[in-house]
């Protein structure tokens, strides 16, 4: 292929969330002479979910807290599916990272009146350990990191979408990444000595979802195509309270804060009756998965509001308290036309986070030499469920680690190697495919994908629904392959972007469905109506998905209890 622009860089980072930015900063710190490039689908620091973090960041810094307690909460929350060494490194690293974010990069987290850090309570924790900046923690973190990246000689390729990981000619290592320059519509191949996959997962294939619009599981899809293993893909976390306001608004799916339930908010069915007592004695204050399932159950029974959701209400509470304590939420609702203080706001459970992802090691290496991974693209840290506050800890801790390992790798082993030209050619052809087909109805495909993942591969699954889902996904994949685009300008072509996103989403959805079918018990975020019991913790296994000849293969591997066994505790 001669038509594409080619560049070289020593270190290429895909994504500018917590993982991508910290990787860049740590690599630069370790070796300021390194040539570092960040390629990101959106704008640097303005895309991705780290910026959207509201609740905060777990770090065992509070008096009375310990690494052991944070670790045990993480393992219990993850229902013993976590990779224990990764989880341990997480809790250790979180403490270092918070201090670093403050003293080195300039974040300032909320303090108590005595000037010490404030820790807030988050579900599933035995100690209040969540460090935060009001309820906009992510903005503080990403703004501070992005301005530091901007200040260094780090190259930015904004609005560059990674399309494919390109192996070397012999295929034994990674050569570089094929990118699409969104603004011009041109392809660009970047050869690199080391590449970080930090595109942040994001379950946006569900009817209702929380992540930012740029996330479409591209990283996971690229990893599958490159032959990497993904673990625990069936573990998709749903957040119980997402706004619902019809399918033609992007408001639908966005989060209403969890604290509302904590503060005494009630959840009502379509007829205005409370129902959570039928599912858990803690009522609305039960954990995310239980509340989500309760709500979903009511919705399936048809007891819904006008848009198909249920309601959250605060109107029995002191309006002044609600206004004061949830100022951000109240104005956000008001901006888009809802009255959170004295009305009923229609809500649905909404797909939030993927615990599963690329198999990686403590140094963020993957099985493909030259390729590293960190953040929500990876699997293992959280097991079957992620604690609120462990997500951003994960991306920032492992992002930083990846930066350091990659800097070392580049100097010792890494080198620019010639790419497999056929792979580049194939990837370009794949991306251009829709322009040679008759225009299809992408909206219809997207809506059907959303619907089928929601109905059949969603909050409550069983063998029949998953099998149905798999079949439907295969059909959709074929249909998308034939769905074309009008051959208009390629520059900043969002409809082409939609097509490419659907392509990644369908492939990743297939991985989720296959893993979900394989796990025949219920734990954490995964609930099988036909296997409602948790199953033996001692004999816990992880699912592992790979793509071979365009077929998804699933295997399992026993969990290694390297630090603690079910029934024991470190804390």
């Amino acid at each position: 292929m001669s038509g594409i622009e080619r560049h070289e860089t020593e270190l290429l980072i895909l994504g500018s969330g917590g993982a991508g930015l910290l990787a860049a900063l740590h690599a630069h710190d370790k070796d300021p002479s390194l040539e570092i490039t960040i390629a990101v689908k959106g704008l640097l620091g303005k895309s991705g979910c780290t910026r959207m973090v509201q609740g905060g960041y777990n770090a065992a810094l509070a008096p009375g807290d310990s690494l052991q307690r944070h670790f045990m909460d993480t393992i219990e929350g993850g229902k013993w599916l976590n990779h224990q060494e990764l989880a341990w490194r997480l809790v250790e690293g979180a403490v270092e990272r918070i201090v670093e974010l403050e003293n080195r990069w300039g974040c300032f987290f909320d303090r108590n009146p005595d000037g010490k850090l404030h820790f807030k309570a988050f579900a599933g924790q035995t100690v209040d350990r969540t460090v935060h900046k009001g309820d906009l923690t992510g903005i503080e973190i990403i703004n501070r990191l992005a301005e530091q990246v901007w200040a260094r000689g780090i190259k930015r390729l904004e609005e560059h979408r990674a399309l494919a990981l390109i192996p070397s000619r012999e295929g034994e290592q990674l050569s570089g990444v094929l990118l699409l320059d969104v603004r011009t519509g041109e392809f660009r191949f970047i050869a690199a000595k080391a590449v970080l996959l930090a595109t942040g997962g994001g379950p946006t294939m569900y009817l209702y979802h929380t992540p930012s619009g740029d996330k479409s599981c591209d990283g996971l899809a690229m990893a599958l195509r490159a032959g990497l293993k993904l673990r625990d893909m069936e573990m998709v976390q749903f957040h119980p309270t997402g706004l619902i306001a019809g399918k033609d608004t992007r408001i639908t799916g966005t989060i209403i804060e969890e604290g509302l339930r904590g503060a005494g908010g009630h959840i009502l069915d379509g007829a205005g009756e409370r129902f959570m007592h039928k599912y858990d004695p803690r009522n609305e204050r039960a954990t995310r998965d239980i509340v989500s399932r309760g709500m979903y159950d009511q919705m399936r029974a048809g007891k819904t509001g006008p848009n198909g959701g249920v309601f959250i209400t605060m109107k029995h509470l002191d309006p002044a308290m609600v206004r004061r304590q949830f100022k951000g939420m109240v104005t956000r609702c008001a901006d888009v036309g809802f009255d959170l203080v004295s009305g009923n706001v229609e809500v649905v459970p909404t797909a939030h986070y993927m615990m599963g992802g690329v198999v990686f090691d403590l140094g963020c290496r993957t099985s493909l030499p030259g390729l590293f991974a960190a953040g929500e693209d990876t699997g293992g840290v959280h097991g079957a469920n992620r604690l609120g506050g462990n997500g951003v800890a994960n991306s920032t801790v492992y992002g930083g680690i990846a930066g350091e390992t990659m800097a070392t790798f580049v100097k010792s082993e890494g080198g620019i190697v010639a790419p497999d030209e056929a792979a580049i050619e194939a990837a370009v052809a794949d991306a251009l495919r829709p322009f040679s087909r008759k225009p299809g109805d992408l909206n219809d495909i997207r809506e059907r994908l959303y619907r089928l993942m929601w109905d059949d591969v969603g909050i409550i699954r069983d063998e029949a629904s998953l099998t149905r889902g798999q079949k439907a996904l295969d059909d959709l994949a074929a249909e998308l392959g034939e769905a074309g685009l009008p051959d208009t300008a390629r520059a900043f072509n969002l409809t082409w972007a939609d097509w490419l996103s659907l392509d990644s989403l369908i492939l990743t959805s297939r991985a989720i469905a296959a893993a979900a079918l394989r796990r025949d018990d219920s734990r954490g975020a995964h609930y099988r109506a036909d296997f409602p019991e948790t199953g033996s913790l001692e004999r816990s296994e992880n699912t592992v998905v790979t793509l071979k000849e365009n077929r998804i293969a699933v295997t399992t591997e026993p969990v290694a209890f390297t630090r603690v066994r079910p029934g024991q505790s470190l804390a």
Partner: protein
Amino acid sequence: MLKVEIWRGTEEGRYETYEVPSQPSQTVLDLVTFVQRKLDPSLAYRFACRVGVCGSCAMTVNDTPRWTCRTHVQKVVERGRVRIAPLRNLPIVKDLATDMVPFFDKGQEAKGRFIPSDAAATSVAEISPEDPKRKEADAAIECIGCAVCYAACDVVSWRPEYLGPAALNRAWTLVSDARDSDRIGHLQAVADDAGCHACHGHQNCVEHCPVGINPTRSISGLKRLVLMAAVRGRL
């Protein structure tokens, strides 16, 4: 049905009119999305978070710069009509998407980044939230970098090199941060010819900032500090 006029093209371009069905819950971003998904697949625009935290969806709506993901159509519609253009004062990439690099570059020109005093410290600094300087920083820190203020400021259009409200606001949070070690450096950066003194206090920035930041207040604070430093010969 709403009549939605949308800017198409780059600096050279024209408005095109689309008919979009009206919905009870509908933001300006939803109008634009509807046009791209259902009426004209070639329309370019930008958004990410859709909840008002990323600051990438700002556009000019009926001549006013706004975040579009959190602007309900009812709030802006005039006689069934909404006119949407890219943000002012920034180069246009295509249609509604602008090139925000100059905006962020100015953040750097204003030395809008933390300069650590003790990067290797093993605990976080003890600073009371009631400390007056901290309160100044806190009041101005939650900027989402949406460039709405930058687009609203006439001085930016009259003097394109002017650093602008957001960059200066960030500089103010840094000189108000007890942990930052380069107060004079930050002041020097904003005392340059296109710095804080170019602001005339129009307060378009205050009026339009979607998250309620008051850059005028921050800029006045900088003007005082720079003045004192200059008079004392410290710049």
